[in-house]
């Protein structure tokens, strides 16, 4: 099963994400916790991967390592050709700005900013002129059906609307990789499905590489590939026929 996934990735000329013997160790007082213990995986461009596992299995930790939000304790990580382990913080910031768009369970919108300003925020750190970034944010919100709400602040938006704003923000710098940590965790199931369909469409239509961490099997069904983690190790890695893949395409 993991053979199949690996073979599949080797068919592509270059993998988008490569992790080799990645480990992550936390020190909690005297205790040493191995959150990740020698994880290796390859993800080809345009693949929709669901990382699953019970809480504490290390799935979020793996996502943050792949996204350059945290440093690995050991192993090698290459994303989009960039070697993340050992990269300095400025380089990681640039990597996150250019290569990855993040979506979080708690949305993480800035409460004092409007939907438009939240989406345009990555442009601030990319030193993009105000009119350019607002035009781009407007186009993204429009594409996600949020045009009537651009001047609303997050507290005035429903959970599903907030997550759409967050997706628009993740797409702002047009990154090749989208990473989502429990993107439907704070949403009801119907809204959750809409969000997953959006992510599926990003993969299918725009060829984005999507990595979603979830413990919800229903969510994982949108993926091309499911990776099961347990106690910091990959216990299962299989390709699946994604639900509504044909619908979205």
């Amino acid at each position, binding site marked *: 099963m993991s053979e199949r996934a690996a073979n599949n990735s080797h068919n592509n000329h270059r993998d988008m994400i490569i992790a080799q013997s990645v480990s992550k160790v936390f020190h909690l007082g005297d205790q040493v916790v191995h959150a990740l213990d020698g994880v290796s995986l390859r993800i080809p461009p345009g693949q929709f991967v669901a990382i699953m596992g019970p809480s504490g299995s290390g799935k979020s930790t793996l996502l*943050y390592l792949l*996204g350059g*939000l*945290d*440093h690995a304790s050991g192993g090698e990580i290459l994303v989009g050709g960039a070697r993340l382990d050992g990269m300095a*913080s*400025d380089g990681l*910031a*640039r990597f*996150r*700005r*250019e290569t990855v*768009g*993040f979506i*979080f369970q*708690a949305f*993480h919108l*800035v409460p*004092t*900013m409007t939907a438009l300003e939240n989406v345009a*925020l*990555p442009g*601030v*750190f*990319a*030193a993009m002129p*105000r009119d350019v970034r607002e035009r781009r944010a407007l186009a993204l919100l429009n594409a996600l059906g949020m045009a009537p709400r651009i001047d609303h602040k997050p507290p005035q938006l429903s959970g599903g609307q907030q997550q759409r704003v967050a997706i628009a*923000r993740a797409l*702002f*710098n047009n990154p090749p990789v989208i990473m989502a940590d429990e993107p439907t965790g704070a949403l009801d199931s119907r809204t959750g499905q809409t969000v997953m369909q959006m992510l599926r469409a990003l993969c299918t239509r725009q060829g984005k590489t999507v990595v979603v961490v979830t413990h919800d099997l229903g969510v994982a069904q949108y993926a091309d590939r499911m990776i099961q983690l347990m106690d910091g190790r990959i216990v299962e890695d299989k390709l699946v026929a994604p639900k509504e893949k044909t619908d979205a395409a």
Partner: protein
Amino acid sequence: MIGELLPLALGNLARARGRLIMTAGGVLVGTAAVVLLIALTFGLQRSAEKSIGENASLTEIDVYPNWGREMNENLPQLTVEAVRQFWQVPGVEVVIPMVNLQGGELLAGDYTGWGNIMGIDPALLPYLGLELTEGTLSLGPGQGLLGPRVGDNFFDPSSEEWEPVQVDLMNTPFEVRLFQYNSPTPSERKVELELTGTFREGTSFDYAILMPVRDVMAWNEWITGQEADPETFVYDRVVVRATSRETSQDVSEAIRDLGYATGGIGDYLNALNNFFATMRVMLGGVGAVALLVAAFGVANTMTMAILERTKEIGLMKAIGATDRDVLTVFLIEAGLVGLAGGLAGVGLSLFLQNVINQAVQNAPQGDSPALIFLPFDTSQIGGSLIVIPAELTVLAVVLATLVGVGAGFYPALRAAHLPPVTALKQE
């Protein structure tokens, strides 16, 4: 980059207005303390200067041979060459050499008196800063300008009592009697002197009569029986005037470096300025303590704000903000708190300046207990005990902003170095 981050920082500040106002309030008090205390020293200094003398004499430096240092035959003297050297000193506006009459007696009608007759180049008269109470400021041959107190020193030679008599010299026939001491046949000679004007009291020439230097030198030659030799000739007094108050200290120093001693009102004033500069540093230091306390307030507020917004910091980093971006955002916020406090503090200072000066102006002279401690005549204050120069307001605002940035630096640095994951997971 800062232009892009500024609206972000402004939005953040608008979130916690109450806390912002209180923190900026601390900076306000600190800034006002610094400004008012320093402004007080400016006010006192100005008042002290006013009570010393007229503005014109403040740049005046008296130059003497440095008698006190050592007995030395090569001690630099006020020669023609020395005067030439003084002209070369940077910051010198004019050098006024003077020659005293070697001996003589003043005769006014039936009375006789003493006064210091000094010869000066009439062309340099305007540089002495003399104001006339009567007559005209000009000196021709045989003419003299009268010091206002010369008339106080006359007496009646025929009287038994040595009683000073006040003489109105301008309206009394005036002569000078010269004695030839050294000659084997002592002789004397009377010269008529036409007084063209009297100058205002309060200069170093109150007891002097100014005359053209040629007349005085000619009389001295008659008195001593010797012709003046340009090689050995020595002036009795040299007044150097600096171009401005600011340069007068440098000029004094340069002349001392040439081996002369300096004095006079300008030099005294320099000592006074040094005193006030010290006072300014001390009082400014007291005010700075208040500003230091405010700095801790800013640091505390920034620490709080960063704790509250830890997730947001994680988010900013997740979407591509560098450590430097995060640092900049928080430093702008801290700087703006300082700036707001500084502006308000300067505003308060300007307001209090009016209130205090008004109160001083209206205070009954002499018996105001609050003003007894002042080391000079309070009537000289003239309504400006607090003087806030424009530079001070600018400096205070800049200082307050820097205090804000400085106080915010450590919290901001900590925020900038937060690992994104830790920040995002913060509960």
